[in-house]
């Protein structure tokens, strides 16, 4: 009898811990949610690499994300999208030169397809990334740029 009551209390405590999780998640800033959720499979790409329309498209199709399911609960998804939009390449009326080369009718989904990127990284860099098991993909910025997560790309 006593054991059962103790077990019940322990079980309720465990359930209580589980119930706490969403509340903790809600108190995280959108930037923190982005940094945590979008760095699980690759480094968190700087929002400034793509325009708002790209981030909207990416965040609107997370369950089919470049061949993988990267879906999130709505609350987290919405917060991250807001963060991406307010830090995008064209946020606050910005219009960088490289973005002007992309017609507004086009919505690039990859940084690695942008004209400036393919200029800096030719077919050989791409093939090298793919064939080197330590890099694996041209999207693995850190495979070649050790400072990539800090936004440093001119260290090589």
């Amino acid at each position: 009898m006593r054991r059962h009551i103790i077990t019940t209390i322990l079980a309720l405590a465990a359930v209580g811990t589980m119930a706490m999780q969403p509340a903790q998640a809600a108190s995280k800033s959108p930037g923190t949610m982005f940094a945590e959720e979008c760095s699980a499979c690759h480094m968190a790409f700087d929002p400034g690499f793509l325009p708002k329309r790209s981030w909207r498209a990416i965040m609107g199709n997370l369950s089919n994300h470049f061949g993988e399911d990267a879906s999130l609960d709505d609350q987290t998804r919405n917060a991250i999208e807001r963060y991406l939009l307010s830090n995008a390449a064209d946020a606050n009326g910005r219009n960088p030169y490289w973005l002007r080369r992309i017609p507004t009718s086009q919505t690039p989904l990859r940084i690695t397809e942008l004209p400036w990127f393919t200029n800096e990284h030719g077919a050989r860099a791409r093939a090298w990334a793919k064939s080197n098991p330590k890099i694996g993909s041209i999207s693995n910025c850190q495979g070649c740029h050790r400072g990539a997560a800090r936004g440093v790309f001119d260290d090589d």
Partner: protein
Amino acid sequence: MKLFPNLILSGTLLAVALGAPIQPAQADPARDAIIAQFKAQAGVSSFSAARGKKFFHAKHAGGKPETPSCTTCHTNDPRNFGKTRVGKVIDPMAVSRNPQRFTDPKKVAKWFRRNCKTVLGRECTAQEKGDILTYLSSI
């Protein structure tokens, strides 16, 4: 005793559900509670590490061709570090190597949903999830 039948019943159910008799070395109340929930959902009283192992290492159809198996990213030995398709290192899945594993119910639910869809093109059943966690807790 008759005065508290509900209390006794719920206590017993929870004791069974919590899987009291398993893996004392790596037991963790949060992980036990997650497995208990899968038991309740699947309507079973125990899971099979052998079945979990088979599922985890099998080549599945129905998902993305690039990722036919859990081992595509988590490797053939879940005690080892794995790697994503973008080259990011994944910590070992085996609880013996990584005691933090399967202790956050939201994280577990999120990754089962994602990875089962990616590998099998469908969600995993509570039975499959329980078998997998039992396997990964046993090695």
